[in-house]
């Protein structure tokens, strides 16, 4: 037993030495997650901070001016043009000068005064449905706000029903809050999967694996010695990404650190198991690299990080249950924003444990039996 532990320790030490000895490979392990996190933090956001718009105001009334002033004062909308004709409005959208065009009819103030419904026509450039949707949502909010203030100021009857939205966990709907915790899982998986899928493949390619197999190492010991270093490295990488999210992007952390690391540990186990499985199946590093990239894309797409799983077709939704990243994204997001404890995360934790155990067992069997 002691001999076994010493051997595992020796292999762990050798693996860490092999990846951490050279400065170049040290940098290549820890710089990319930070850079990618910064990149994603800024680039991958659905929030819009600037909407150029054009308007045709046929009413030229106090009411229409007040409405437009509200729009301009929002800090998001900027009036780019006030064309006279509809055609010019069209051109402005076609040439992407404006994202939104607004038309206010000539009887806007009159209808408001009479307490009749007044319409503001909003045309959005939906070539990008995401931004168009968000921009129109903003316009709607401003229209609703304007309507209420106007009614209150002019003694008109307020609308009978109005919605009052309270966004829990993310009061300002900041997509970054949802994204960055997801990135912790995704970036860690990307790195560890690459690292582990290469590890046995590299040894096979360079012939060192045979040398290892003729020593008294047992398959399980090799498996442990190969799995521990990437888990340690993965934990460090995840911590780096987490620190960037917490202190650079100011994403609030409401859960417990222990819970987070428990979840990450199980996730790394599953992810490294898959990496080692790939590594024990392929015979060259090139194959390992290709294999990993083929796997990564579906893992990310089916994780719910970028698009809600509930929106996917039924068959794909079922597939996501085999994706460790799906559980990890959920776990990290919930710990960050919701602050849940381990008890509530159980449905997400046990599949990771099962995946980890199965893939690691398969990998360690394959170490010795691949060519049969």
């Amino acid at each position: 037993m002691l001999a076994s532990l010493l051997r595992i320790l020796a292999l762990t030490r050798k693996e860490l030495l092999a990846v951490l000895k050279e400065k170049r490979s040290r940098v290549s392990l820890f710089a990319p997650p930070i850079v990618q996190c910064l990149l994603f933090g800024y680039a991958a956001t659905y929030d819009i901070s600037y909407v150029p718009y054009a308007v045709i105001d046929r009413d030229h009334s106090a009411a229409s001016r007040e409405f437009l002033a509200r729009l301009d004062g929002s800090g998001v909308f900027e009036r780019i043009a006030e064309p006279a004709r509809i055609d010019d409005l069209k051109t402005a959208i076609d040439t992407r000068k404006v994202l939104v065009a607004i038309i206010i009819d000539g009887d806007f103030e009159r209808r408001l005064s009479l307490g009749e419904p007044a319409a503001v026509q909003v045309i959005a450039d939906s070539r990008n449905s995401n931004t168009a949707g968000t921009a129109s949502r903003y316009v709607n909010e401003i229209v609703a706000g304007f309507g209420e203030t106007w009614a209150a100021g002019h003694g008109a009857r307020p609308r009978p029903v109005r919605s009052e939205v309270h966004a829990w966990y993310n009061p300002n709907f900041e997509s970054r809050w949802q994204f960055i915790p997801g990135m912790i899982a995704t970036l860690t998986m990307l790195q560890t999967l690459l690292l582990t899928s290469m590890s046995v493949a590299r040894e096979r390619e360079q012939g060192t694996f045979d040398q290892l197999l003729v020593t008294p190492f047992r398959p399980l010991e090799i498996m442990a010695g190969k799995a521990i270093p990437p888990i340690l490295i993965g934990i460090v990488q995840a911590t780096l990404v987490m620190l960037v999210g917490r202190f650079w992007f100011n994403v609030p952390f409401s859960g417990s650190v222990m819970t987070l690391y428990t979840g990450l540990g199980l996730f790394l186990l599953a992810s490294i198991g898959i990496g080692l499985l790939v590594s024990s199946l392929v015979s060259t590093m090139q194959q390992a690299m290709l294999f990993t990239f083929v796997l990564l894309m579906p893992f990310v797409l089916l994780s719910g990080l970028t698009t809600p799983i509930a929106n996917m077709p039924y068959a794909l939704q079922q597939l996501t249950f085999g994706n460790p990243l799906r559980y990890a994204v959920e776990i990290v997001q919930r710990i960050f924003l919701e602050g849940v404890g381990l008890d509530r995360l159980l449905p997400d934790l046990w599949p990771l444990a099962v995946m980890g155990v199965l893939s690691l067992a398969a990998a360690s069997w394959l170490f010795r039996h691949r060519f049969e």
Partner: protein
Amino acid sequence: MIAGGADKTAAPPKVVSIRGVGKTFRRGGARIRALDNVSLDADAGSLVALVGPDGAGKTTLLRMIAGLVSIDTGSVAVLGFDAARDPQSIQSRIGYMPQRFGLYEDLSVQENMDLYADLNGVTAAERRERYPRLMEMTDLGRFLDRPAGKLSGGMKQKLGLACTLVRPPRLLLLDEPTVGVDPLSRRELWEIILHLVRDDKLTAIVSTAALDEAERCDRALLMHLGKVLSEGSPEAIAGRAEGRVFLADPGPDEPARRLQSRLLDDDAVLDAVPEGGQVHLVMRQGCGPAAVGLSPEPALPRFEDGFMTLLHEAGAGGHAAGGAMTLARPPEKGADDVAIEVSDLVKTFGDFVAVDHVSFRVRRGEIFGLLGPNGAGKTTTFRMLCGLLAASGGTLRVAGEDLRVAGASARQKVGYVAQKFALYSQLSVRENLDFYASAYGLSGRARRDRIEWAMTQFELTELARVVSGQLPGGFKQRLSMAAALMHGPEILFLDEPTSGADPLARREFWRRITALSDQGVTVIVTTHFMEEAEYCDHAVIQDAGRILAKGTPAEIRARARAQPGGRPTMEDAFIAIVEEARARPHEKPVDKSGVRGGPS
């Protein structure tokens, strides 16, 4: 005509004329003097050999002639062009085959040829005229559709040569063309080279570490550490050992290698190798054979003797090269006299039979040789013995157990040195030894002691912190052996340990093996250098998966055809045995195709 030596009138009197060239490389902080005042002339239609141990500067000189290396001092003129100023003109007229020729392993033989024809701008008409000749010469015509990666080592080299010759060159440069090539293919390659030079009047410069090859050339340039030691005809170089070469008989029941090892320890002896059951020795200047207390018969000096003499005079080689060693803990005498027993061993990969009903037995403490050409199934047999591969049939016992199914403790009894360097090249010497010591369960003080022992015995102490991937070839092998011996195994497996090693490194290696065997370690070794079988107690010859001959070196040698003028060598015996077996296809379908069907 294969060579393009037709325009004789335009040819300058000397095809290559090198005057006092020097070249220094910078590696890290160190300056390496690769070439130091080297001069060489090659007449049209002559065959010149560049001979020397690793690091002699042979490759640098060839690359300089090809205009691929800048010249620090001196001048190089090739076919009348200055290599420094006009390398393009040279490159378009010569053929250069580097040590690792750039064959595309996934492309077929034909596609590789077409690729090189395209690169050299050979027209379709020229190809129609040229391909059949190249095919006839190399005997590759039957394998046009085969991917280059599936060819045997010898066939790959022939294909490389054919690709080098697609455009008729006026000068052929070959860098160690026979490294890793078995004796049969080696003989065929040399027939091609000699045909090109003798019949087609091509000029060729060949670098080689195999000294018998240099004997077949017109002139030899003997190099060591960038300097020229001697230049002249092979006979003249052999003549340097005139009167100092003898053949000594070992005592009854004494293996020749033990006498050889003893002789090497004697200051009066410059060089000794076992040969044909005797020991071929070269005495030092002024020392008679009486000095070693034997009455050996005088023998004719060979090129190799002259080479060793010159190297010795230059202060290198001889038996100063080391290799003697003592084990810290010799293996205990087991109750069982048999170390390895193999019966009816079979391994198939699909339809391909890599190992075909092989049986042999290795006694404790003996040196056992597994000889055969590339693809004979030696490595496959080895991998099964080491438990790296499951047998398809038959039984095998190593130290009483089948390593494939035995517990981890059984692997403690064996050491394994793979064919190519298989330690961690990014780790230092010390880190590698540390890891393998721990892998074999050594810890604390015992580990430190064993590592200390290994570094002293293999003269690695000064290199402890060097990254092992940057070690020179010979030191890599020492490190591999050190790692395999650290736990004091009973049985040592060595797969092609001397492939690509120079004569000095090979002598040193065999001295270590002899010392290990004397101290009770069982050594099983594969090789395709047939003369190395002389070091073995018993050997088997394997070809196409089958065992063709087994016995002591003397018994195997006895199967050779009688050679005119001299005793048959092990290589003669080997070629006779393999050719005889291949000529009897009715007995068993023998794969003559030269295919490497599986990992061999």
